[in-house]
């Protein structure tokens, strides 16, 4: 027979307990100042020391004022209204309220690839159950060629029949202000590419790829471009966000970011994410790229010094 002691279909159970329960629930939504009981009196200090240290100091993850309760509570929009559970997206975002859910590397969000450090081993392509990754080469400016500052000058030189690139004004600024989390537009191409027809002294003749027209441009403005740069496309439409690709990559180039937003499009073609749309968080990406750049620049510098020393030794 029924194991609940009071489960009898009698007169008393017609409405007494059910009505009481709904009334209590409704009254609890009026907030802590009025009715002290509720779920939120029982909050505990849930973040352990390690987690607190890890998330402190970050704008998105500042949990110094968090008083964790097992369920979701109000937000900075409504600090006194502690109920109900609904997260008022997009005014509140879950990664602000519960940052432990979005520990980097643990959430299967949008795919982010640091193509600069990718070695094209294709392990990710092999492991993907749905065949969503395609590797190819792309016409880009190698990071060594586009470097500025202390790592500049270790790139290779322009050559006739090769490729060149000129910076598009405003693209960098747009890239900095564009929020990859929520933007639905693809970023603007940073460079405009063209084939080098002729080199002479300070100028070069370039046939642009986009217009087909030829221009004579100062060599100082041109950067060497290479069409064998590793790149790829990821079909977010086919991706099931299983995370196997992230586990397969040994070179820490392949990540799943924490982004769950901003991946929509109106056509299936818009869901093919090319290299520009698979960037990880700008700051992190830049760090990794800088590290890789420094590594390559150092390698190149060492190589040149050795060569210079050899030439000197022969002379």
């Amino acid at each position, binding site marked *: 027979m029924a194991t609940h002691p009071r489960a009898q279909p009698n007169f008393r159970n017609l*409405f007494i307990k059910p009505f009481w329960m709904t009334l209590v629930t409704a009254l609890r939504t009026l907030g802590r100042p009025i009715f002290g009981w509720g779920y939120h009196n029982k909050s505990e200090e849930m973040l352990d020391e390690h987690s607190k240290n890890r998330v402190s100091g970050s704008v998105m993850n500042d949990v110094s004022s968090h008083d964790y309760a097992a369920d979701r509570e109000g937000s900075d929009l409504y600090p006194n209204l502690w109920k109900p559970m609904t997260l008022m997206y997009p005014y509140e975002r879950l990664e602000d309220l519960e940052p432990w859910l979005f520990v980097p590397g643990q959430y299967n969000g949008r795919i982010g690839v640091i193509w600069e450090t990718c070695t094209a081993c294709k392990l990710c392509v092999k492991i993907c159950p749905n065949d969503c990754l395609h590797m190819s080469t792309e016409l880009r400016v190698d990071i060594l060629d586009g470097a500025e500052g202390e790592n500049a000058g270790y790139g290779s030189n322009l050559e006739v029949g090769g490729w060149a690139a000129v910076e598009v004004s405003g693209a960098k600024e747009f890239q900095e202000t564009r929020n990859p989390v929520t933007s639905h537009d693809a970023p603007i191409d940073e460079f405009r590419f063209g084939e080098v027809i002729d080199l002479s002294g300070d100028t070069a003749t370039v046939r642009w790829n986009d217009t087909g027209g030829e221009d004579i441009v100062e060599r100082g403005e041109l950067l060497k471009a290479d069409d064998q740069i590793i790149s790829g496309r990821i079909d977010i439409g086919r991706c099931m966000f299983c995370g196997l690709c992230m586990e397969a990559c040994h070179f820490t180039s392949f990540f799943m970011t924490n982004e769950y937003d901003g991946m929509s499009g109106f056509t299936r073609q818009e869901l093919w994410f090319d290299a520009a749309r698979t960037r990880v968080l700008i700051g992190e990406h830049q760090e990794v790229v800088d590290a890789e750049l420094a590594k390559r620049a150092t390698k190149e510098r060492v190589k040149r010094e050795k060569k210079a020393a050899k030439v000197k030794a022969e002379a």
Partner: protein
Amino acid sequence: MADWLQLNDWLYDGLDSALNTALHGTPLADYAGFMALVLAATLACVSVLGVFMMGLGLILWIEPKLWARMMDRRGRTTDWRSLWVGEQGVTAGEWWNKVPYGLGRPIGALNRWLNKVMGNASKHPSVERVNNRSWHGAWWALPGFVQTIADGAKFLTKEHMPPTKADRLIYEISPFLIISSTVLIIGFMPFSSGIYAINPELSVLFALAIFGIAPLGVFFAGWSSNNKYTLIGGIRSAAQLTAYEIPLLITVLGVCVLSGSFNFIEIVNFQHSAGAWNFFLLPLGFGLFIITMIAEVERIPFDMPEAEAELVEGWWTEYGGMRWGLLFAAEYMRVWAACILCAVFFLGGWSAPFAGLMGNLGVVGVVWNDLIPGVVWTMLKSLFIFLIFVWARASLPRVRTDQILEFGWRYLLPLSVVQLVIAVILRLSFYDPAGLGSGSAWDGGSGFFWLVPLVVFVVSMAIFIVYSIDEDKDPPSRPYHVHTVEPAGTHVAGSVGGRQKIGNTGMR
């Protein structure tokens, strides 16, 4: 009760004198009285309809909010920001600029002020890109209120798609039957001694007779849609509404016997001058009225005819556009009418509670008794009854149709007869007509003028509590009988039983 808001008097007398003076000496002078009468009657009807619709708007707003709170959610938060019409609206942006003669400018100003006070001031860029239609500001902006108007406008834009093989004439007539009978009730319901459309001597009879036309319309709608689901819904509805009409009418009969009249205004006057509301004299009747009314308006727990889990929308599945919108509105109009009827029959209508006690409290008493118009009291009491309706909806599951019918015929009908007998006994034996004016009609011969209602109420509460405490120790026998072709639970999978024939697996 001295109610200063005598709208009908102002309309009839005021328009009469106004038109007489205005048309004096003109060829129309002889007709001035008649014209004044017609105009005043029209305006009285409009005012009653307006008060009712204000109440309807109020409950259409309160119900989702309270229902949501009971479900632990915030409920509707879209609000005045729905003024931005945006996607499919008049313009792709600030439509108020297109309203002629600059009439839309105040709306634009309101829009800008709302933005300033509670606008898109969030540090997340995703907030700016979203069409911000939510309330995240003050409670005084009545969050979710405008949603009702938006819903109504939406229904106006939808297509009218009658099913191909529907019985066209009946299909078109049914919404009119239901809606017009519902609106007709409003004509008989008074909101205070000065706000009513018409006051015949037997207004209660008229109102309840008209309330009972709706089951016919519902059945027509279910049948004519040429849809098995709506047919089932229509049949269930017809059976249920008919079954609950009878206890309802007997309960109301009890109230009328107690109050001595079939007229709404006189019932309220009786409750005021006899000194006790009918709720205290007939608590069983109050409970019966509420339960039968919940069944009459087809709300949970009695909403089998439109049970979403099985019939999706029940008898109104095949209606689209404003026909559905008006049916939906008619359901809530019936709910609101039921609440007002309950307030009038049992809670003293427009008389202020504790009128006598409050009258001894000086300024407070003056405000309480004289300044607050009667219509406000009616509204408040009806709203309170409505809260009970919503509360029941949130707490109880749906009762099955045959269980509903058994409950109505086997339990409510005898109880309503019992309640009628109680009302007759009270009226014949314990009522003192001499005390009618001084509020002591129920003193039962003693000096204490609340004696009879107090005794009745306390006894009823005692019976209720005794029943509630009593927990059955034995396992209950199934209280409802089920007569089936093949008795439930006896079918063995794969066998042929009852009247089934092998191979008769149905129409393809």
